């Protein structure tokens, strides 16, 4: 049977030290590998490397026979369905419980009846609630379920990566989790878990000592009865579709980008009826300024998704970090049209389209700047705003070109 996951001669640096050096690990279908070691030995690092979240100094990581990441920075989409629970829960908080679990399944192209799983975790009565309204332990259960459900729904061998999944779970929930891991193993899925919990360690077919880099087999009986999980197919949710939905639900865009545009427009209008006395270049510059200001705020989802490492979860499982997609086009067009009315200028379709394009381009350019600091220990302190004036020159050149 080919390996689901292979770490080959992997070297990873974190902070000032080398956490993993010449590290090898192979996970096949039907295996449950428990990563053991003291705090700081690199258990979470192995899991994050396996999920393709960390850059490698040396070596490569393969899912099946496909190298998903190597030390030269090459990345490829995993052909294997990956379920992931990080140390943090990987959720935004504004998701509805049931929707989030269905979303996790849809990443692999499946749909599954989540009710039995929620019932087993004593969460059925909370399935229509927002994740943010749950207790820490309940959110942890959702995070664990979002890693397990794609594997339960899939007929093909999946890779399930669990980092300290039992943290915050009550005894009954841990027993249920142990049973589910056993069932997944019997179905031929590969499970890797980092844990200090003896009850979960008992489910492991192999124990991998991270500090030594050795893997030892251990005998585990296969005596769990299977669980019926009727599954169907579902359309894959893209990071863009999720981002737009989240923006619509949370109105994050209004609090940041929308307010920046409205304040800019309000400030310009408060200066009096000066707009008709300006040159065409100045007039267009002011007309497009609210759309430009809206874009300059960047993507509010980037900061929101850092909190519980939702962006890392999406990168590993969903193939990218959620973003507002085409929404800035709409916002740019609306505020430019509003500015046109406010300044009492004749409506010009070209100007509205340019406003939409400016907002879209600036929004996504700032988003790329924000994402460039994702690896930092304190990304919020990196002052990305200092880089945004780089966008003023293209804006000035565009306005100049349009008014020639």
């Amino acid at each position: 049977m080919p390996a689901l996951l292979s770490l080959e001669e992997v070297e990873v640096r974190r902070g000032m030290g080398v956490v993993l050096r010449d590290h090898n690990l192979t996970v096949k279908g039907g295996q449950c590998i428990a990563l053991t070691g003291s705090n700081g030995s690199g258990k979470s690092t192995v899991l994050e490397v396996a999920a393709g979240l960390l850059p490698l100094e040396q070596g490569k990581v393969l899912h099946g026979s496909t190298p998903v990441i190597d030390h030269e920075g090459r990345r490829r989409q995993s052909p294997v369905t990956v379920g992931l629970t990080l140390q943090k829960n990987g959720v935004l908080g504004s998701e509805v419980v049931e929707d989030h679990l269905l979303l996790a399944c849809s990443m692999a192209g499946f749909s599954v009846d989540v009710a039995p799983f929620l019932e087993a975790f004593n969460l059925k009565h909370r399935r229509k609630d927002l994740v943010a309204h749950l207790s820490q332990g309940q959110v942890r259960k959702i995070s664990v379920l979002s890693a397990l459900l794609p594997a339960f729904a899939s007929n093909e061998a999946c890779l399930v990566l669990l980092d300290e999944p039992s943290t915050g779970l009550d005894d009954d929930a841990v027993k249920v989790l142990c049973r589910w891991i056993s069932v997944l193993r019997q179905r031929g899925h590969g499970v890797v878990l980092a844990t200090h919990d003896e009850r979960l360690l008992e489910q492991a077919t192999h124990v991998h000592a991270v500090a030594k880099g050795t893997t030892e087999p251990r005998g585990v009986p296969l005596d769990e009865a299977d669980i019926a999980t009727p599954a169907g197919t579902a359309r894959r949710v893209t990071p863009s579709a999720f981002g737009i939905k989240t923006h619509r639900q949370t109105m994050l865009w209004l609090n940041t980008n929308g307010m920046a545009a409205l304040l800019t427009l309000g400030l310009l209008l408060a200066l009096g009826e000066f707009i008709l006395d300006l040159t065409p270049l100045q007039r267009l510059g002011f007309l497009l300024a609210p759309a430009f200001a809206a874009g300059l705020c960047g993507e509010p989802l980037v900061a929101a998704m850092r909190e519980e490492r939702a962006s890392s979860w999406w990168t590993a499982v969903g193939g990218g970090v959620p973003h507002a997609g085409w929404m800035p086009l709409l916002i740019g067009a609306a505020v430019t049209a509003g500015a046109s009315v406010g300044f009492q200028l004749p409506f010009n379709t070209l100007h509205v389209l340019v406003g939409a394009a400016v907002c879209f381009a600036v929004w996504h350019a700032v988003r790329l700047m924000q994402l460039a600091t994702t690896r930092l220990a304190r990304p919020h302190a990196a002052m990305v705003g200092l880089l945004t004036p780089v966008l003023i020159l293209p804006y000035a050149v565009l306005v100049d070109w349009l008014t020639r």
Partner: protein
Amino acid sequence: MKSAGVVLFAGFAGITTSMLLALLWAPSVSIDAFESPAAQRIFYWHVPAAWAAFIAFGALFIGSAGWLFKRSERMWRLHVAGSEAGLATGLMTVWSGCVWGAAEWGTPWDWTDVRLNTFGLLTLLAIYVVLGRNSQPDGVETRDTFAAFGLYGFVLVPLTYIATRIWTIRHPGPVVGTDDGGSINGDMGLVLLFSAVSFTVLIVGHMMASMRLTLLEQKLQRLQAKTDRVV
């Protein structure tokens, strides 16, 4: 550190001398050629500072590439030194340019002048790299991120250089290194050359001192980590 101090002192002395020469000895430009001929003497500070900034940004680029591709500690120290020197000389250039622009153009800043703006952005990048790096704990994540910004920023250097030749809107074109021999006379060229050499010496001394300081900081961090393990 001692050699860096000597080089720095030589640079300071050279710049002081060149400024005295610029103010007291160098001939004035034609009163018909500029709106504000007196302000034009800032040129002896502005152009050599810009030249030194390009050297610093070159060091930032080499240091960034050296860290990203070779994982060289020495190259990381060069990145740190290049960004700090780039920030210092960039601010010297931008500030003196604003003074001259206010006197000559009637405005300290012109958003339509490509060279002015690309140079301003280079300086802003140096501010970002220096402040951003200092806001983070040292580590491979911090180094990779800011080294990448150092590489991207270097794209602005050739753009700034060719901007004077392609998009000369308000900035004067090149005054040396042109086919017609440039627009400055012999004595002016001599003071400009002396000033450029002095700024070069200063920036080399600055980078030597900065690299040494970073090395000492790294040693201190290692000792602190060792002490933590013992305690």
